């Protein structure tokens, strides 16, 4: 029936199998990370008696929230074949605005609105620089990383500002379920954000355009997609998500510190890449990113409980990133 299968039947099965595996990987990019997460959880629950404790699981989840939210915005940018090095700096500036404005006596809600607005505007600035000046996202966000970090230090006078209002700490205020499982509003907010972005990416034309632009910008233009609008909107939405991450961060640690999250940008990229989203754009998705963030948290928690030095944890995380990208490349070559 198909005129394209010309391979001799004898050689076909093994090649077809490997093609099948690669094809499966390309079709369901979240599957690999999920399997990796499952393996990590099984291994650590065997090697450590405390790993599977409810309170430890709850802690792992709490530790994942901020990076996962940052990585959600990062996923959007990376899907367009870009990269955002400034995301954590934007988030830190947002949290400083929240905390300092409230500490200076402004209404907490106003502080929140101001922080959200500033983060979104910085996202819009990145978007404008990428789409109007046609600068590479790496350069734009590298520049903004420096600028925004400095702005944060200037604004905070180099000090950290404590959370003085219930609203600002709200996302971290939870209650215990089943005895020791700490459930916070932040968890639900994070899941809701992932759900919304997933819906937008998979069920709306905007999402199709984000993937198409990341796949092949020129082809997207030729099919009539407004490439610049799509790219710009991605950076604006990402800025908004970083503002939510800033709010999440104050819920987790009730103190806005200008020197916090200095490797947050790289940690978010790590989560995205381990989650199976391609750095070359156009492939991947948000659930992979959530799983990727969980993998990093589980790995760190499990290795800590096994008494392994945190520097070796960095080694393990780094190797995982390389392995994830290598596997992605292999699958793409194999499937073509």
């Amino acid at each position, binding site marked *: *029936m*198909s*005129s*394209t299968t010309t391979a001799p039947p004898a050689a076909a099965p093994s090649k077809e199998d490997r093609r099948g595996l690669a*094809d499966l990987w*390309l*079709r369901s990019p979240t599957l690999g990370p999920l399997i990796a997460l499952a393996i990590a959880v099984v291994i650590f629950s065997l090697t450590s008696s405390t790993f599977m404790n409810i309170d430890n699981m709850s802690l792992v989840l709490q530790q994942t929230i901020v990076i996962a939210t940052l990585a959600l915005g990062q996923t959007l940018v990376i899907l367009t074949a870009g990269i955002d090095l400034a995301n954590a700096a934007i988030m830190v500036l947002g949290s400083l605005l929240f905390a300092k404005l409230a500490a200076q006596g402004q209404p907490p809600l106003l502080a929140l609105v101001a922080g959200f607005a500033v983060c979104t505007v910085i996202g819009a600035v990145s978007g404008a620089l990428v789409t109007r000046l046609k600068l590479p996202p790496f350069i734009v966000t590298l520049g903004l990383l420096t600028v925004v970090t400095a702005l944060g230090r200037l604004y905070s006078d180099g000090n950290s500002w404590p959370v003085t209002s219930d609203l600002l700490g709200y996302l971290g205020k939870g209650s215990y379920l089943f005895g020791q499982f700490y459930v916070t509003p932040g968890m639900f907010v994070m899941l809701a954000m992932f759900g919304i972005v997933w*819906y937008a990416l998979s*069920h*709306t*034309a*905007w999402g*199709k*355009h984000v*993937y*198409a632009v990341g*796949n*092949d910008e*020129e*082809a*997207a233009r*030729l*099919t*009539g*997609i407004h490439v610049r609008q799509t790219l710009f909107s991605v950076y604006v939405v990402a800025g908004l998500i970083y503002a939510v991450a800033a709010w999440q961060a104050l819920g987790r640690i009730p103190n806005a510190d200008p020197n916090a999250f200095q490797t947050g940008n790289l940690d978010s990229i790590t989560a995205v890449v381990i989650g199976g989203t391609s750095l070359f754009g*156009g*492939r991947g998705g948000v659930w992979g990113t959530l799983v990727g963030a969980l993998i990093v948290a589980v790995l760190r928690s499990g290795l800590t409980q096994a008494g392994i030095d945190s520097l070796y944890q960095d080694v393990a995380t780094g190797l995982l990133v390389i392995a994830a990208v290598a596997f992605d490349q292999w699958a793409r070559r194999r*499937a*073509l």
Partner: protein
Amino acid sequence: MSTQQHEQDRVEPGAAEPVMAATGLVKRYGKVTALRGADFELLPGEIMAVVGDNGAGKSTLIKALSGAIVPDEGEIRLDGSPVRFHSPLDARKAGIETVYQTLAVAPAMDISSNLFLGREQRKPGVRGSVFRMLDRKAMRAAAQDQLDALGVATVQNIDQIVETLSGGQRQAVAVSRAAMFGTKLVIMDEPTAALGVKESGQVLDLIRRIRDRGLPVILISHNMPHVFEVADRIHVHRLGRRAALVQPGDYTMSEVVSLMTGALSLDSDGALVDPSGHRAEVDEQGHAVAVDG
């Protein structure tokens, strides 16, 4: 049925009203004049091949027809009424679709998504208007219908990721997309340039089927055998204007090539003449030789 219709067109090209007609197109780039009073005509139900040497102004002509450039002078008519395109999007809105030689598809997306890229359909009701939800089921069904109707049989599954397809199949997706949304005509810019022999054959078949379903096609190609295989008429472009308008049956490939290069031209009777005005033909080596007439 459309084949017969089209046979009639072949006999009497002047009988039907052209789908697209351009007269006296001029386009200058600084000191260079790329189009010097070029005419063009496309009749219903035909495949019009556009051939010409590099630098003949062929691609400028196509850009003018597809809206990529605005000509300085001259007129383009679509179904008899004058049109002025300021962008490819204008031309597309008027029902003109273009297939590019670079495979303009998103490789990591499936066939259905690619067919509807930039023209996605939303679900009816609140789900579509408020939640902007795409009607994936309807798009998939329409995509499958389109591929079936065009006989793109080598593609088994509409959900298949485009990068797992062969080059010919990918081009078939791009061509099907154009045929799906083109209401007036389809322009194909070297659609077989990146393809192997067998795959080119599949794409040429597809072009014929689009013509047979009533959509006229402008085919730009360097490949003479491909042109002679599918074209109903051939527009020979030379020095910024139409040098000849011929039917493939009336001339050999070498004769068309000599019209392209200017070694020969057509006199008012449609006979080949050399630059000095003597009757000529092309010998087996491809050289133009004078004949006694």
